[in-house]
């Protein structure tokens, strides 16, 4: 049971990283990135291949996942500079599907639909299955806290203020003298890098990745997490991610209690329960659990 809880907390924390990534780009800059699962996959594959085929240390894999994720983000954002809103969403969704198809078909590189197994975890062999989860979770939490701190720094800075202005009206932001493209490209690349890192941390935890683990459903989940937590607030994104994973897992136990339904019906009921719960959250708290707040103006020179 304890191991199961550790497992859930670990997956929740990885979703937390993804939620922080999405919150930066969607909540902070107003760009709809439906390709989150693609950047997640790019990072997972980059790190897995570095450490298995490439025989490099795990840390090198993580750093490379950051770099490759960020570079992929930069390519996507710079090739869509003329697109906005719905069109950007469509292109990013397409990007994620392309990543999945490449992973399925470029067998020489990615081992196709068989996936990559035997991805090393830090001290996995020495610790054994029992203790590995207990050691991995703290490592993950340190990374998560670091990223969270980074997001809070950006949020409270003039940089974050300019991003928000771009979210509200990019043209007026430009008239205010902000180089909109630079801000968008940087934020998108940083967000993609974080998603890539999340992918690497996922692969080294489960030791196995395959193309069908990176379906668009993950992106949808993370959008739900950020929306229910509060768009534009890093704390909200984290809370939303843990709430989502708690719902996903508790729904599984809850449907077990319902008598006289088949396994297929049970699975459908589970999805229904999750949907109802999320609708309730957004119905009761339309801005999410921890909504974005307008920072108060600092008092200057003792005068109000």
């Amino acid at each position, binding site marked *: 049971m304890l191991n199961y809880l550790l497992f859930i907390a670990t997956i929740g924390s990885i979703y937390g990283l993804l939620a922080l990534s999405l919150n930066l780009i969607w909540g902070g800059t107003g760009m709809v990135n439906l390709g989150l699962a693609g950047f997640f996959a790019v990072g997972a594959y980059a790190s897995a291949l570095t450490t298995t085929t490439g025989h490099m240390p795990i840390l090198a894999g993580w750093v490379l996942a950051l770099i490759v994720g960020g570079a992929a983000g930069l390519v996507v954002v710079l090739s869509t500079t003329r697109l906005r809103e719905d069109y950007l969403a469509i292109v990013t969704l397409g990007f994620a599907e392309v990543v999945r198809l490449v992973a399925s078909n470029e067998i020489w590189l990615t081992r196709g639909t068989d996936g990559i197994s035997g991805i090393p975890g830090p001290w996995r062999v020495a610790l054994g299955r029992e203790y590995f989860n207990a050691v991995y979770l703290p490592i993950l939490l340190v990374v998560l806290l670091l990223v969270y701190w980074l997001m809070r*720094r950006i949020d409270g800075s003039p940089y974050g203020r300019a991003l928000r202005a771009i979210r509200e009206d990019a043209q007026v932001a430009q008239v205010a*003298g902000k180089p909109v493209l630079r801000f968008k490209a940087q934020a998108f690349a940083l967000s993609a890098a974080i998603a890539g890192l999340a992918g690497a941390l996922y692969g080294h935890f489960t030791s196995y990745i395959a193309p069908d683990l990176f379906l668009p459903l993950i992106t949808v989940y993370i959008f739900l997490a950020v929306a229910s937590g509060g768009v534009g607030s890093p704390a909200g994104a984290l809370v939303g991610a843990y709430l989502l994973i708690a719902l996903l897992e508790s729904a599984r136990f809850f449907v077990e209690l319902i008598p006289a339904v088949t396994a297929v019906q049970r699975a459908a009921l589970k999805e229904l329960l999750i949907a109802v719960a999320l609708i309730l959250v957004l119905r009761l708290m339309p801005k999410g659990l921890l909504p974005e707040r307008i920072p108060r*103006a600092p008092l200057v020179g003792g005068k109000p």
Partner: protein
Amino acid sequence: MSLLQIANLRRAFYGLEVLRGVDMTVQAGGITGLIGPNGAGKTTLFNVVSGLVPPDAGSIRFDGREISGLAPDAVSRAGLVRTFQVARGFPKLSVFQHLMLYGRDQPGETLWQAIVGTRAARQREAELAERAWETARFLRLDELIDNPATALSGGQKKLLEIGRALMAAPRLVLLDEPTAGVNPTLQNEIGERLLELPKRGITVLLIEHDMGFIAQLCNPVIVMAEGQVLTEGTFDSVRADHRVREAYLGRRAA
């Protein structure tokens, strides 16, 4: 000294010539009025000068430098800021955040300095915060400083636009109908506040339909009609000009 020199500026939309060779000079200092009937091309001129719409032909020299074809943010950083006819801003940002955004040279707007929080970034932020408070008090928006822009009335939004221009401290500000849809009391207040801009070294070029407002504030007044400059002079001389009456009322009525 001429601050803005526009020569033979042209722009057509779908074959319709909106700017048909505009020649205009705005002298540094003071408030210049730009009037003309609807469809004369005034707002399009602002859009082209501020870089939002590229011109088809012609030149725009600002402060001795050619700026036609520059991106809007580059024009803004060169010292030329504009406002919009329908007040546009950032709905969910506060009055304070609006003012801060228009501050120039912010080291904290680079990603690296934002994360590290360098001394230079903190110092500049504190300087700007002080100026933002001063500006808010000057416009009597200080009580509303933490309110989001959506919570402001139309007139307050117009005041905030003036505040944004003050924070940017540009050489030239283009105001598109600063009192459109504002009640007469607040209109007077906006006029009073506008007089402060030239005192701070900000030259103003403004579009306005309220002739009383123009008469009070603007000298000279430039008249546009059908995509060209018709005439220029003091308000009284322009009002006496029969061509101006024709442009507003049609040839036969005049």
